[in-house]
């Protein structure tokens, strides 16, 4: 491969990297305190609907009762 084409290849790669970084740098961000508060709120608001968190009575969880319900 000639020196020129190798150089232009590196240039293209570098241009892409810079373009990508510019995009990432322009992302709008919020403070961690705000983001964390929202995560916490979501967890707490949905906690009662979370069967693995709350534990559900055996009658409501299809996996908890024994496999066979035969009486004989």
């Amino acid at each position, binding site marked *: 491969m000639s020196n020129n084409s190798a150089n232009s290849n590196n240039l293209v790669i570098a241009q892409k990297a810079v373009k990508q970084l510019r995009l*990432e740098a322009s992302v709008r*961000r919020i403070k961690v305190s705000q983001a964390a508060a929202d995560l916490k709120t979501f967890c707490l608001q949905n906690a009662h609907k979370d069967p693995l968190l709350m534990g559900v009575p055996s009658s409501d969880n299809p996996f908890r009762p024994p496999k066979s319900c035969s009486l004989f």
Partner: protein
Amino acid sequence: MAAQEVQPNETLASLKTESETLKTKLEEERAKLHDVELHQVAEKVEALGQFVMKTRRTLKGHGNKVLCMDWCKDKRRIVSSSQDGKVIVWDAFTTNKEHAVTMPCTWVMACAYAPSGCAVACGGLDNKCSVYPLSLDKNENLAAKKKSVAMHTNYLSACSFTNSDMQILTSSGDGTCALWDVESGQLLQSFHGHAADVLCLDLAPSETGNTFVSGGCDKKANVWDMRSGQCVQSFETHESDINSVRYYPSGDAFASGSDDATCRLYDLRADREVAIYSKESIIFGASSVDFSLSGRLLFGGYNDYTINVWDVLKGTRVSILFGHENRVSTLRVSPDGTAFCSGSWDHTLRIWA
């Protein structure tokens, strides 16, 4: 805000300098907003009590390492794939096998259930993702109806249907992710940006819009816009391969599991890592992670055969589950959150509740 176009007369040297400057600026901007830790915000939250989670079903039938599994939307069926080339569809309530397909390759690393429940997708060392419609007739040869959808130039590491049976998203050892039309096999969009094998992907919950996250051997987790193919956010804090990524149920964050023995939580709106789930005693890689329905619990399957259950908000481990006799390779919570399933190199799958 669109990114500026790169001027044609910029030299390699100036681009490299700008690259370094932008990276530093990115870190500074992220650091400015890092005013508190997640576990501090969660200090007043009531601690979780003792958990009693046990193996409720053991699915036996694979002849070799289980590599991947997925739940059907009906909350009872499961598809799993194995190193021996077998893909099995189970009824998790009864543990009966409903379908079995033998793939023409070994190491079927990826499998997924279609949203309709009428088909499964799988692939691995064959570098493809194939879709098998599931027949109601148990005697029908599923392999005959197989449809090859995706073609990569290296192994298929993960696949997922989007919110319909019509499109599949794949990730590959060739360093790319791709979106395919199932019917025609046409490539709809490809996603370039990882510098090494992509090992995992997860689609954002449908309410959040058309994005997905991928994790790779380059230690990066990338968030992609499915329409434009653009990587919109990138996170590089893990110290080794990222084996698993999973969105937090609200879509505002995602968790990752890595060979560096940690799981981490990244918030998309704060654009940074907000929690690390680790312990000095945990030295083996995390292969697979998933959240409970409310996002409060993070389940992690590890290469030391255990499953660790983490309090997402407080950053502490609340439970450790034993049972598998080899690495846990895959783990998913059921669609209604009543149970989760783990698959292992010990050839079995376990349902825990």
